[in-house]
């Protein structure tokens, strides 16, 4: 034990702990500002939604606080005119297919990336990251060309494939930290007890990954419903999703009353809102990236 003694005079004294209390006011003002921004955002967005909702139920509305009359007929019209039933069905098909396929190819890939090191891993990672970094239009236009050439353009299958391109990497991005969190010893234990890779996946990994899979699938779902460009470029008249149909409605030939468009927009919002609320019921949004550490509650 080496006791080197430094003469006390050479060390500058440590300043005392700051005890000024001016901070409290500044902190409160800052928090009030934040609350104000949040409220402003929420109020304005809320009013925007309310405006659309009001308009969708209005018979006529020109520059006054509230419309002159109310009617639900726009919804009925929109339903019939835009063939919303079939469009909704197409949207459901596309979205569910994309979610399922994205999980099917994404989760195993995320597992391989999380657990194994192999030559070319960085290249593969880049390969999966690029579709998220490149604008959909950039690869969407040539993609549409290719799909039309191979006869898949304008079909349901084509739309599904196109939407899968950003969906699969997204699944991989979300699932990889989830898989890294799982103790590899669990897999070793499963193997020792006789499980091969497939059974280990099904009986050990998938149940543990359930929250992550749920989070990923719900995010993909919401994103795919909202994704405009890819479907726009690759869809035919009977493979349009709701968002594309909505866009066309705005530009449809003839004079389209904005109210019916609003009605359709409200239906769109309702559809996504239902899914989002289901999502938030099961998944805390903060679980997207990493573990959540709690405050001390242990004794």
């Amino acid at each position: 034990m080496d006791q080197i003694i430094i003469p006390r005079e050479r060390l500058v004294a440590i300043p005392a702990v700051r005890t000024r209390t001016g901070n409290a006011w500044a902190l409160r003002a800052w928090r009030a500002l934040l609350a104000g921004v949040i409220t402003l955002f929420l109020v304005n967005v809320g009013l925007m939604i309310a405006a659309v909702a009001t308009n969708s139920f209005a018979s006529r509305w020109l520059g006054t606080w509230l419309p002159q009359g109310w009617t639900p007929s726009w919804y009925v019209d929109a339903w019939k005119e835009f063939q919303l039933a079939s469009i909704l069905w197409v949207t459901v098909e596309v979205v569910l297919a994309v979610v399922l396929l994205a999980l099917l190819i994404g989760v195993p890939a995320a597992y391989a990336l999380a657990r194994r090191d192999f030559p070319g891993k960085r290249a593969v990672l880049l390969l999966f990251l690029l579709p998220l970094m490149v604008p959909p239009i950039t690869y969407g236009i040539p993609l549409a060309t290719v799909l039309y050439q191979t006869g898949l353009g304008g079909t349901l299958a084509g739309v599904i494939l196109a939407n899968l391109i950003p969906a699969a990497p997204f699944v991989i991005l979300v699932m990889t930290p989830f898989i890294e969190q799982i103790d590899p010893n669990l897999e070793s234990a499963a193997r020792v007890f006789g499980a091969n890779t497939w059974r280990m996946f099904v009986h050990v990994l998938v149940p543990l990954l359930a929250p992550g899979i749920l989070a990923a699938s719900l995010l993909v779902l919401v994103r795919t419903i909202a994704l405009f460009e890819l479907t726009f470029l690759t869809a035919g008249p009977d493979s349009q999703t709701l968002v594309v149909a909505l866009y066309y409605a705005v530009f449809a030939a003839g004079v389209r009353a904005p109210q019916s468009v609003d009605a359709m927009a409200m239906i769109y919002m309702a559809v996504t809102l239902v899914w989002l609320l289901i999502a938030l019921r099961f998944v805390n949004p903060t679980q997207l990236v990493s573990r959540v550490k709690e405050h001390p509650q242990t004794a």
Partner: protein
Amino acid sequence: MAAATLRSAGFDRAVLLVVPAAAFMLLLFVYPFIYGLVLSFEPKTGGALANYHKFFTTSNLWPTIGTTLKLAVPATIINVFIAVPIAYRMRVRSRWQRIATALLVVPITLGTVLIAEGMLTYFGPRGWLAQFLQVTHLYDGSIRLTHNYWGVLISLVVSGFPFTFLLILSYITGIDPVLARAAATLGADPKAQFRHIYLPLLAPGLAMCFCLAFVQAFSVFPSAVLLGAPAGPTRVISIAAYEAAFEQYDYSLASAIAMIMGFVQLLIVAFVLSLRGWFYKGPVTGGKG
């Protein structure tokens, strides 16, 4: 080859799990991308670079880069830099966190058209906001927030904020709160805790988030058409590409424009990610790592 015997069958097979996804990407992303790239060098008329030449010399084409950047960069900056303090405030898991998060995330469900319609109705010259301002005499004059630059910017913020906020919230809650507690016992007040602990640890995630948000904003298309003035101040690059493809049926030019778009974007992303590398080494001055 003898070394291969050390790798058991199980090891190799796990790596194969990557193959379906990788093959899919190669087929449906890389191939079309390369196809588009090649196509851009095969214009209808002129030499290999004719498309690009045309882009940079046509007066309604090359300024679209600047226009799009003028929209995308401020929108992203606003989104990221508003999301950070709000997410920081909500890092403690509580009932408030869940409610506020759910509310702030609702705009994800809106979709571009609803936002556009909502803004046209609400922010329009005869909308509620205008009437409110008139009635309260806060601003006497007509507000011009739609069919111009501001309309598109606002819609980008409204649609981009929830996603950015969610991502940053995830990153912030991933930082172990015990580090902030340790800093507190060493004399750091909440401001110092943020500056010395959270911010450096957040920086890599922030950079990633900026890039993702920027990509979303840079691809702006329906908003620019519905809420902006697509002929002029909000003529973004995706509009140019769309016009080339579906109005002029010049797929080669469209591919060229798409390539330019992708290139500009990758440039900015690469720049931000390189900044992130610099930032992360910052707090470890003098260290050899």
